[in-house]
């Protein structure tokens, strides 16, 4: 029943998307819009096939930056959240600072990072890391603090050790929130990597788009946007899929979403 509904919904979404593309195509043809202003979907598709090797090569670079940046923020974000939750000093003094720091647009420190780390890959990974780090650490802290007082009483009455309280109670309770952070983080990591490439680079999708822009190559710019959209969508859905597999009790609890 639920699977049937999902299939119907997927069909509906696809049909709407296709309809939008057809409309776009027709508008371009009907009003005779020149390709240097707005290319048609078929133009874009043709160009993507024609230049697929270039697009894929640059996509690979950007994808690596995104995954490395996101991976680092998971690697540091969760342990940092654990420290914040268990240490009074960190939760009262360091965490508010981190929240405040979050309000500084990470992109604005890109030029500084270039000065310190150079023009290479490391700078892009760092920016993707910094921008996706905050949602992950904040939602992990929120999740790890979500354990009710009564639950702790139950754990105490079962004579659970501190480690057991963490592993059996606190951490599983936090997982839905942590995954929420992952979903925001992975989306922001894409933004971080591309913007970092805008600032300075000699490869990657952001670089490709800047070059295409300077040549007034609108079609290529659309190709880059399509690739970025595909990467963002794919990564987001991969995180969602892992969440569904890892937390069967949670997906089901919110009604098989």
């Amino acid at each position, binding site marked *: 029943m639920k699977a049937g509904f999902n299939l119907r919904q997927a069909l509906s979404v696809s049909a709407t998307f296709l309809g939008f593309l057809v409309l776009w195509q027709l508008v371009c043809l009907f009003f005779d819009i020149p390709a240097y202003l707005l290319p048609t979907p078929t133009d874009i598709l043709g160009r993507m096939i024609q230049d697929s090797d270039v697009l894929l090569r640059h996509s690979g670079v950007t994808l690596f930056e995104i995954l490395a940046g996101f991976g680092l923020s998971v690697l540091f974000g969760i342990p940092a959240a654990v420290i914040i939750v268990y240490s009074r000093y960190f939760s009262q003094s360091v965490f508010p600072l981190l929240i405040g720091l979050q309000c500084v647009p990470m992109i604005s420190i890109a030029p500084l990072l270039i000065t310190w780390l150079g023009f290479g890959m490391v700078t892009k990974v760092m920016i993707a890391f910094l921008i996706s780090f905050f949602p992950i650490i904040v939602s992990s802290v929120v999740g790890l603090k979500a354990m009710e007082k*009564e639950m702790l009483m139950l754990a105490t*009455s079962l*004579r659970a050790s501190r480690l*057991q309280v963490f592993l059996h109670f606190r951490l599983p*309770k936090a997982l839905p929130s942590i995954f929420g952070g992952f979903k925001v983080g992975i989306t922001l990591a894409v933004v971080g990597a591309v913007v970092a490439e805008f600032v300075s680079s000699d490869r990657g999708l952001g670089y490709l788009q800047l070059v295409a822009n300077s040549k007034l190559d609108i079609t290529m710019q659309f190709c880059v946007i399509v690739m970025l959209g595909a990467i963002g969508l794919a990564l987001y859905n991969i995180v969602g899929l892992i969440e569904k597999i890892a937390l069967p009790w*949670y997906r*089901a609890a919110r009604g098989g979403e």
Partner: protein
Amino acid sequence: MSAQPIVIREVEKTFQTRGGAVQALAKVDLNIEPLSFVSVVGPSGCGKSTLMNLLAGLDTPTDGTILIGGKPMKGPQEGNAVVFQKDLLLEWRTVLANVLLPFELQNITWLDRKNRMTNKQMAEEMLQMVGLEGFGDKYPFELSGGMRQRVSICRALIQQPSLLMMDEPFGALDALTREQMMYDLLKIYKKYKCTVVFITHSIEEAVFLSDRVLVMSPRPGSVVRDLPIELERPRGMNTRMDARFLEYVREIRGVFQSQGVLAEV
């Protein structure tokens, strides 16, 4: 572990709050016979939960001592199990895994395959007894409130407690489910003989289930009436119509009236 006598001697509890010290329990002196079913009934905020937390070792008295089997207790004891008002099931564990949680936390069966099988069998038998046969693989969200609380009772019983403490365990359930849970609890009590301390604010529930009802005064709580219930077991639906049952209920109501907890307009 066999049931031990429990002695509560001059126990007091005062909480320090922002608005100053609040005395939750005034001097409480009690002896609880092994294997007896004792209910504590009182108005909200009278310190009955505090009393249970002290008994469960979840809190320490400000003054006085609690002796279990003659030994002063420190922290949660082996052989004590608690059922709370909320079922507190772990949403990420199946029903069976929830029931087996106490074993897992004590690492009793971590490497021992044979033990693990017998524990699993024990858990399944328990679920069967409370009418949850075949629900072992379900997640808690798939269960109703009454079923969830039954699972949490199984989780307490699997520890084979000598003292089972229940803090308003049926408080969150609807009236009919509540009544059924009482019959089920009596069945459980008959099968798994242990001392039961049952906290409730329902006079009928207390009288129906117990060998002895302790009536508490409003805060600071103290035991104002210690009433043995001499209704023969097994008790059932007819017990609730028995004239003596109604007399006990009337008597406890009288205590609450004299305490100013209940008043007619």
